[in-house]
């Protein structure tokens, strides 16, 4: 009796969900056609018609919307990767710093965590961006970062212009940035938008990673550390051979969580005009009217990135557990 009722209930739920989806799809399709937009992903092959400032691969207005999405995705991945590496390094240092025997240093690290964790990331992105475009000089008065003797690196409102290796006639060679009438060309250019998003993501996520590291290291029992020190290991050796390997095991799941957050948070790039996936989707949506498809693409990409990160971190965790087996 109970079972039959449950089965019926579930069937009804499935039916309702399907019906709701069907009704929604009908309404949406009708509305889109009313706007002169044919639902479907066919528009991805159409000519995008707009240019993108920051690109890792060649792109111009004659290319397709699909390629624009790829450009956006690569930008998302680039800014996320840079921020992941930097925030893990900074966060790790801050986490260990909080546990330093030097109380002053520990307090300083704690202050950092409290400061950056309690301010919205969007605000941090905006603050860094306003600082960069407000305080940096115009391209014509760019700062020569390493002076006249070091590599040719220029910092200005246009961004950080760097020499970059390219394939020339004589094989691999360094192309140097050159100041044109308006801004630098040649070499590589890190835009202020990129720098703002990458550094704010780093500063913000590092505060959380610091807490993860601190928690994991603290979970390694005090006695183990004391035993290691008693055996004559130095502080650094104790950390390297006793604490870190054990802490890593408990650290990886929450760390993975923070990295997932970082990847999702990179979508805030849209607030300062860095052409990440969301920004490209926003433009495409405005241009083509394919709102449903564009948002579906955003969601699918982030879900994939999330799953990918989770799988990578999970694999690493599993390997660590296998290697350390006995503990």
């Amino acid at each position, binding site marked *: 009796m109970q079972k039959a009722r*449950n089965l019926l*209930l*579930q069937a009804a*739920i*499935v039916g309702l*969900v399907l019906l709701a989806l069907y009704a*929604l799809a009908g*309404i*949406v399709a009708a*509305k*889109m056609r*009313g706007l002169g937009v044919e639902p479907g992903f066919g528009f991805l092959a159409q000519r995008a018609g707009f240019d993108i400032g920051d690109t890792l691969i060649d792109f111009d207005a004659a290319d397709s919307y699909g390629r624009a999405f790829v450009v956006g995705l690569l930008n998302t991945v680039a800014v996320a990767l840079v921020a992941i590496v930097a925030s893990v390094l900074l966060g790790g240092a801050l986490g260990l710093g909080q546990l330093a025997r*030097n*109380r*002053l*240093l520990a307090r*300083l690290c704690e202050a950092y965590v*409290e*400061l950056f*964790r*309690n*301010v*919205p*990331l*969007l*605000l*941090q992105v*905006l*603050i860094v961006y*306003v*600082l960069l475009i*407000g*305080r940096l000089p115009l391209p014509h008065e760019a700062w020569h970062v390493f002076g006249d003797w070091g590599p040719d690196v220029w910092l200005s409102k246009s961004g950080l212009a760097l020499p970059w290796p390219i394939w020339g006639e004589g094989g691999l060679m360094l192309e140097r940035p050159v100041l044109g009438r308006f801004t630098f060309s040649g070499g590589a250019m890190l835009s202020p938008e990129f720098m703002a998003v990458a550094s704010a993501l780093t500063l913000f996520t590092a505060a959380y990673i610091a807490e993860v590291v601190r928690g994991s290291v603290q979970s390694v029992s005090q006695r183990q550390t004391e035993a290691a020190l008693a055996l004559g290991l130095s502080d650094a050796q104790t950390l390297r051979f006793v604490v870190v390997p054990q802490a890593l095991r408990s650290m990886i799941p929450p760390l993975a969580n923070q990295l997932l957050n970082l990847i*999702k*948070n*990179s*979508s*805030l790039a*849209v*607030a300062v005009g860095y052409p990440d996936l*969301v920004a490209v*989707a*926003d433009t495409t*949506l405005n241009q083509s009217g394919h*709102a*449903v498809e564009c*948002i579906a693409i*955003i*969601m699918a990409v*982030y*879900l994939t990135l*999330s*799953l990918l990160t989770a799988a990578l971190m999970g694999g690493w965790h599993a390997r660590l557990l296998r290697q350390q087996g006995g503990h």
Partner: protein
Amino acid sequence: MGAAMKRYLTPGNAVLGALLLWAAWHLFDWAIVQAVFRPDVAACHALEGRGACWGVVAEKYRVIFFGRYPFEEQWRPLLATALMLVMLGLSVSRPFRNRRILVLWGAGLAIFLLLMKGGLFGLANVDTPRWGGLPLTLILTVFGLAGAFPLAVLLALGRNGRLPVVRSVCAVFIEIVRGVPLVAVLFMAAFLFPLFLPQGWDFPALLRVLVGIVLFAGAYLAEVIRGGLLAIPRGQTEAAQALGLSYWQMQVRVILPQALRQVLPALMNSAIALFKDTSLVIIVGLFELTGALGLAVDGDPKWRAFALDGYLFIALIYWIGCFALSRYSRTLERAT
């Protein structure tokens, strides 16, 4: 005492301390000593960056706090904000930790909305597109949480329940929402919800965004609550069943109260996260605190140069809010 002093007096600490003092002095000098507090642009420009220009806040505080709300009516959002803060304060204090608090909140939120919207008792009607600033931040956070909580309870129970279909529907919803950024959910609220509605129906942007926030926060809270549910020993369920309680009676009277108490600190953390995340609604054109600052400063040629000082002021407000909440959460953690 002496030993502790000695531990502090290392050369490394001396250098670090000196650096710290130097930085602290410069910060103090910049933020207080040299700073301009009057709404005087000329004085701010004369600083040339040697001091902060808090004058931008003195000049623009009405827009920063209340956005585009009609100027003469701004006592209403002020009163509404004060009311909300008092209610938050009361909820923290012990004498109100019971059912009375729910009645209080119900009445409080109704008065809050009445003050903001008007249209009754001789208050002029003010439409939601003109709401902004701090009250909007509070609306998105408080109403967002209030809406997300029941959803989260249902999702958590569903995902932990016995019906496989319900379990998977809840799990899929939770994982999808948690796998995508809030920006995507807000875009959905801004661009897709109108398409979902039949022709001729329209909801104000605020309501659509609020629905988006409820769905988003609901998924996160659901996982927190589920953690609490999993921590309840099976014996409790069995005992409740033996007493002849129905499923809902058991959940509401026995399981949920214990589970929620257990995850209270984690729930608080989610609340803090949501408070910070509300700043994102600027991306879909709502002007809460962060957006209102842009409204006040970016469009004004006189003060545009001092946007940074404005942002720092807003950051301070958020910081105070989040820090206070996280401290409160920590005392809860100790209490449980």
